[in-house]
């Protein structure tokens, strides 16, 4: 337990030092999407009977909770390849669970901050949605899954460059296609089937449903839990791989 706290506390102390920079970073891309897509272009369009801004904001919550929680992979890598701080954890008498759980919780904390930023932005744009427990649950499960994936991949990569590749080839496409910017139903059947594989598609669906005040279906939640557990177990296994 102490080990878990140490890992988490370290991330939080660093986050505290970078707080305003980090917060600004979290605001930039949602703000650009809101202005460019929601405000300027989507003014007249209606999606699911709502304005595009209303459609977009839950998508941005899904996207940011994914990218921010996945973002710990970069920090883990910098700590591992440039500062060698990861060795402190390897040499410490703590279990892999403590390490993975500490980092995952740090990723989730960042995701929560990012969501709060989007909520503030949405108020500025005059959009009011339902921000009830189902929305938070979906966002948390989403960030849990992607933080766990981040830890696993950060342990497996051999360099920081590999990490950037993964982000470009896995996370960025998912961020655009996973039901964030447009309804997946607008795509042909085969494409919908493919996108159903992406965890983010389910997170977007659940978050958007909850934000629109609908009673959410249970499947997206179950899928997110299953994916999260799978990534977490994967992460546990990869910590040993990081020893050369």
């Amino acid at each position, binding site marked *: 337990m*102490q*080990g878990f*706290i*140490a890992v988490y*506390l*370290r991330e939080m*102390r*660093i986050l505290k*030092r*970078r707080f305003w920079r980090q917060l600004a970073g979290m605001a930039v891309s949602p703000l650009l999407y809101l202005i460019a897509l929601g405000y300027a272009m989507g003014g007249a369009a209606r999606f699911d009977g709502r304005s595009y801004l209303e459609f977009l904001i839950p998508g941005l919550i899904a996207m940011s909770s994914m990218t921010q929680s996945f973002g710990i992979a970069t920090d883990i890598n910098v*700590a591992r390849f440039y*500062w*060698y*701080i990861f*060795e*402190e*954890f*390897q*040499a*410490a*008498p*703590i*279990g892999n669970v403590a390490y993975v759980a500490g980092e995952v919780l740090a990723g989730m904390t960042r995701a929560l901050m990012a969501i709060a930023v989007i909520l503030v932005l949405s108020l500025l744009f005059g959009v009011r949605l339902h921000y009830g427990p189902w929305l938070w649950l979906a966002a948390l499960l989403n960030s849990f899954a992607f933080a766990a994936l981040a830890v696993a991949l950060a342990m497996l990569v051999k360099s920081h460059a590999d990490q950037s590749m993964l982000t470009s080839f896995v996370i960025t496409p998912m961020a655009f296609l996973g039901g964030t910017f447009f309804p997946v139903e607008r795509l042909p059947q085969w494409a919908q089937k493919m996108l159903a594989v992406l965890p983010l598609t389910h997170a977007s669906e659940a978050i958007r449903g909850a934000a629109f005040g609908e009673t959410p279906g249970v499947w997206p939640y179950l899928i997110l839990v299953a994916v999260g557990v799978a990534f977490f177990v994967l992460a546990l296994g990869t910590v*040993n791989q990081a*020893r*050369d």
Partner: protein
Amino acid sequence: MIRIENLRKTYGKIQALCGIDLHVPAGELFAYLGPNGAGKTTSIRILTGLTRLSAGAAALNGHDIAAQSTAAKRQCGLVPQHVNLDSELTVGENLDLHGRLFGMPAATRRQRIAELLAYVELGDRVHSLVKQLSGGLKRRVMIARALLHNPRILFLDEPTVGLDPAIRRRIWSLIKQIQQQGTTIFLTTHYIEEAEFLADRVAFLDSGRIVAVDSPTALMAGVGHWAVDWVSDAGLQSAYFPSREAAQAAGAARHNGFTLRRVNLEDAFLTLTGKKVATDANAQTVHGQGHGAHAAATRNPTGGQAKKGH
């Protein structure tokens, strides 16, 4: 305290360690001496759990490093070759995290941090950010950190590399003090004089093999007591003699200058491996040209032992 049996490590085709056998008793200050790439860091990384071994076994204070890795890790403190502090955090925060990782209760943590920072003479730097410290100060913080949880064994991987002579001497005396308090110390170095000055016993490591293990005095005595250096077309040559008189006589027989000095650990290493230990402070002989057989002042990097030839 440290027991290593037939330890092997391969990285792909590279054999970093080819079967190391070693026993370091409790309380000893043991030095691992070898050129770049000999496998010093690899050995320490395996013992402290940072790298997996390929074959063989090792135990720290009776705890097998593979089967009882958590118990084994509790035995050791590590000062790695490169700085691995969190530069965005303060000195105190770095130490505090280490204490938490080793399960120290809050009160003990606070007390030990204050104690150890005072010990390495950094009591006033608790709140400094690590990135504002110089290299020598960072080393001292790392030593304090490694000792925080009262380890039985302290691993120091080139603790003084890149430090100026004054700070190096301070760290040496710190290391001696730590040993006097009962900690077993395993250090690596490629500074000959460091091993000579500090170690109870030295292992010469070369290309993943231990070539010899003994006390510095015994290793040097195996070569002789006095050395004569001279420069020939083949480079710097040395010859070793049991007595000063014999060395003096041999030196006098050469006509373009020689250096008379005490045998040092490097001579022992050279004799046993046929290689030089890579160091930035290799012996340099200054010739007294035109003084016939008499001249030859020596600048001896090992310090203190250089004698003038007459």
